[in-house]
């Protein structure tokens, strides 16, 4: 498995940086085009969205909007896998209550984790050294590949 791209970035705990992180996600999608036959515009949007949702959760729910904290984002791209890890410095938040069911359309909140889960193959949230990490994985193998995914 060849490591194609690794991005490690630490940003202040402020929503104004969502745009920057989303843009980086779109640029990563550009690098993916050589290996994936999906709609380039759609893939760019999905990676932008996953990063935006995960970072907004870290800022608001884990780091409680504390301006002295940071969010650390790591994107790791191989020839057949995309890993996105978003590290917070807080007490964590519960993602288990947000399952795969479509959220009540009448509610004005609670769609973030649903969107992440819909667009990625696996989503885990666990404790780490200085806080928690939201770990998201997507297989980039096309339907023509015949080997299985771990």
């Amino acid at each position: 498995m060849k490591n194609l791209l690794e991005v490690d970035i630490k940003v202040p705990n402020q929503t104004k940086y969502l745009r920057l992180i989303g843009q980086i996600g779109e640029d990563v999608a550009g690098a993916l085009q050589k290996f994936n036959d999906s709609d380039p515009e759609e893939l760019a949007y999905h990676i932008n969205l996953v990063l935006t949702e995960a970072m907004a959760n870290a800022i608001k729910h884990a780091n409680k909007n504390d301006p002295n904290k940071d969010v650390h984002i790591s994107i790791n791209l191989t020839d057949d896998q995309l890993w996105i890890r978003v590290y917070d410095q807080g007490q964590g938040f519960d993602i288990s209550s947000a399952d795969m069911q479509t959220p009540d359309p009448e509610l004005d909140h609670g769609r973030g984790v649903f969107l992440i889960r819909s667009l990625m193959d696996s989503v885990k949230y666990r404790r780490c050294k200085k806080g928690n990490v939201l770990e998201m994985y997507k297989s980039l193998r096309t339907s023509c590949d015949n080997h299985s995914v771990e």
Partner: protein
Amino acid sequence: MIVTSKDFDKAVVMSIEEERLDAHNSNELKSQLMNLFEEGKSNIVIDLQHVRFIDSSGLGALVSGFKNAGSREGNVKLCGLQKQVKSMFELTRLHRVFEIFPSEEEALASF
């Protein structure tokens, strides 16, 4: 957040002149809608033609406006959705909540 509003006989058209509607500016959209409600304007068309990206907070702000308008016997309708933005409404089933029109004219004509 840059927003322009135009008053018509049956509704107000609020055009969002931003490329992104996300957790950074969605509260501002809620406030802008609340200002219109407080002026007694509860029939609103939100023109999203400039919005290239919307996240769950942006969708939530629109739902909040929709519910507020409903409680005032008004309605919030949408127009000008770009392809990827529209797909977010479909993924979250919000296309069944909102009336969505291709153009401002068609949205206005529906009131």
